[in-house]
């Protein structure tokens, strides 16, 4: 009898896994002190926090001045926030007539019901609510600009953070569908469609956005006939959208390329045809893969709205910059830019977190 030939005496019945080391100590040991290197990094990080956080807190809150009418009222060693109270309206609304500011607030509030059914599509009633989402851009534009009985506000009154949000949001909403079409165009079987899409994408990716901003302000009015005189902010939105679309297109194209050919063939074999195959089979999968890149583009777009400064629009950054040129508030750059940064950070961070949530939720069945 061969000594290599053996059988088990009894089959092993399944057992529960051994208990993990739980509790705070267990967690600390597993995550922060698992090795000497990890422990050293943990201590270094704690040291850096200890250096930075108390200093920032002391400067920004404990030693800071909050009241006053000029920078000379700020006498302590910390930050001077005295301007916030006076200037907050301008930072948020620009030169929008204060008695009409409710329209901006309303437009922004309506964004919540407009976004919810899109962001969380398992919400009850999402189907109906999505009609409102589709109508939202027009509702918001009507509220901001007015007309049809509502007092008209010329767009050169737009400014502050409201301008950043308006341009950013319009760019985001428009560049996604447009970018998807460009990505499909670049992979089209039709040579002319492919050529035009590629040319568009490469042009907008190959030239800095600032250049397009100048073009929006200076060049377009020269080329367009006078009765086509598009509003400056409208022109900026169109250019920002085109610019972002080129990036979205490339991100989506990457997603499309990551799918096996068989997916498209199976859809074709079922008789779905090109557009239905794209909408029902290909894009849902390609977009899911593209989420990180798409959100990345949106975040970049939102921050790039500050570039309107070069064509003399007063967004939040330009308002802050001109305020610290005012002798009353001279030299408060740190405070003003920190203040502005918080606005951008909160919004960009929220977008980033949402994209993580979306990725996790869509990661079903894999």
């Amino acid at each position, binding site marked *: 009898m061969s000594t290599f030939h053996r059988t088990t005496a009894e089959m092993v019945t399944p057992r529960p896994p051994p208990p993990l080391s739980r509790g705070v100590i267990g967690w600390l040991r597993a995550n922060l002190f698992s090795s000497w290197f990890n422990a050293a990094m943990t201590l270094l990080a704690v040291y850096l926090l200890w250096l930075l956080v108390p200093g920032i807190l002391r400067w920004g809150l404990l030693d800071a001045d909050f009241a006053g009418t000029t920078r000379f009222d700020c006498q302590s060693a910390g930050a001077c926030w005295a301007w916030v109270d006076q200037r907050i309206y301008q930072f948020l609304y620009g030169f929008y007539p204060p008695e009409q500011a409710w329209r901006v607030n309303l437009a922004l509030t309506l964004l919540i019901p407009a976004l919810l059914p899109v962001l969380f599509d398992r919400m009850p009633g999402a189907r109906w609510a999505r009609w409102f989402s589709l109508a939202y851009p027009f509702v918001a534009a009507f509220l901001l600009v007015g007309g049809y009985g509502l007092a008209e506000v010329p767009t050169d009154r737009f400014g502050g953070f409201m301008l950043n949000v308006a341009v950013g949001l319009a760019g985001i909403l428009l560049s996604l569908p447009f970018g998807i079409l460009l990505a499909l165009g670049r992979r089209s079987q039709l040579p002319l469609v492919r050529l035009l899409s590629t040319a568009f994408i490469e042009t907008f990716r190959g030239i800095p956005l600032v250049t397009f901003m100048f073009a929006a302000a200076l060049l377009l009015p020269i080329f367009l006939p006078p009765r086509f005189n598009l509003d400056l902010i409208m022109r900026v939105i169109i250019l920002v959208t085109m610019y972002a679309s080129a990036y979205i297109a490339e991100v989506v194209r990457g997603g499309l390329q990551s799918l096996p050919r068989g997916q498209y063939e*199976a859809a074709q*074999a*079922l008789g779905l045809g090109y557009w*239905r195959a794209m909408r029902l*089979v290909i894009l849902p999968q390609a977009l899911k893969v593209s989420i990180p890149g798409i959100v990345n583009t949106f975040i970049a777009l939102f921050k790039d709205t500050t570039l309107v400064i070069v064509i003399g629009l007063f967004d939040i950054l330009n308002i802050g910059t001109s305020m610290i040129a005012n002798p009353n508030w001279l030299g408060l750059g740190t405070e003003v830019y920190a203040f502005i940064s918080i606005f951008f950070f909160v919004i960009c961070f929220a977008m980033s977190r949402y994209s993580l949530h979306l990725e996790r939720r869509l990661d*079903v*069945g*894999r």
Partner: protein
Amino acid sequence: MSDADQPRTGDGNAPIIEIRGLNKWYGGFHALRDINLTVGRGERIVICGPSGSGKSTLIRCINRLEHHEQGTLMVDGTMLTNDVKNIEAIRSEVGMVFQQFNLFPHLTVLENCTLAPIWVRRMPKADAERLALEYLQRVHIPEQAHKYPGQLSGGQQQRVAIARSLCMRPTIMLFDEPTSALDPEMIKEVLEVMVDLARSGMTMLVITHEMGFAKEVADRVIFMDEGQIVEAAAPAEFFTNPRSERTKLFLSQIL
């Protein structure tokens, strides 16, 4: 044209597929050469041959996943041309099962099955679901309806793929090596479903090297090599008395 190009059974007067002088090139490579083939309604054909002989290309021409340069292709009375309407009409009549299953991973099994009936046939959702469950029953996996394809075994996925095609109530089913990507113990469950389908009278073109399946259900076995149909015969004849040297060599390698 030889006898072997003609249907063996079924209603010989009403061919469902007629291929005349079909030629196809990939660039300069002559992938299909002077193919003539007539398939009768209800006929079961098994296509075999060495890898790269053009088997997939041939059946993919039938539902226009590949286009051909020369010859004519009639499917159920419709001539295949560049006309998108014709192509989509034919595709909804012709089911196809792939080696890699190609289920849609973002949809549940049930949604995979109802997608085309709802969007192509305009079937109400409830009816489509009823139909899908009926076919999932027929491939023996109704209990998996709400899972995602990634949660199923290969054999189960391939059976869902078959059910998905059947939900369009096709008149012809094409199979491109349906069991080649499967672990041995799963091949049987898929072949059983296919035998069952063959018994129901479905017109089938099956690329496979499962010669047991060919012997059991095929009306005709076609051997392809170098883009041509080298030999076509009833399975009894084909396996016991092959005529061409190439066929003999091929059979000696796989049997």
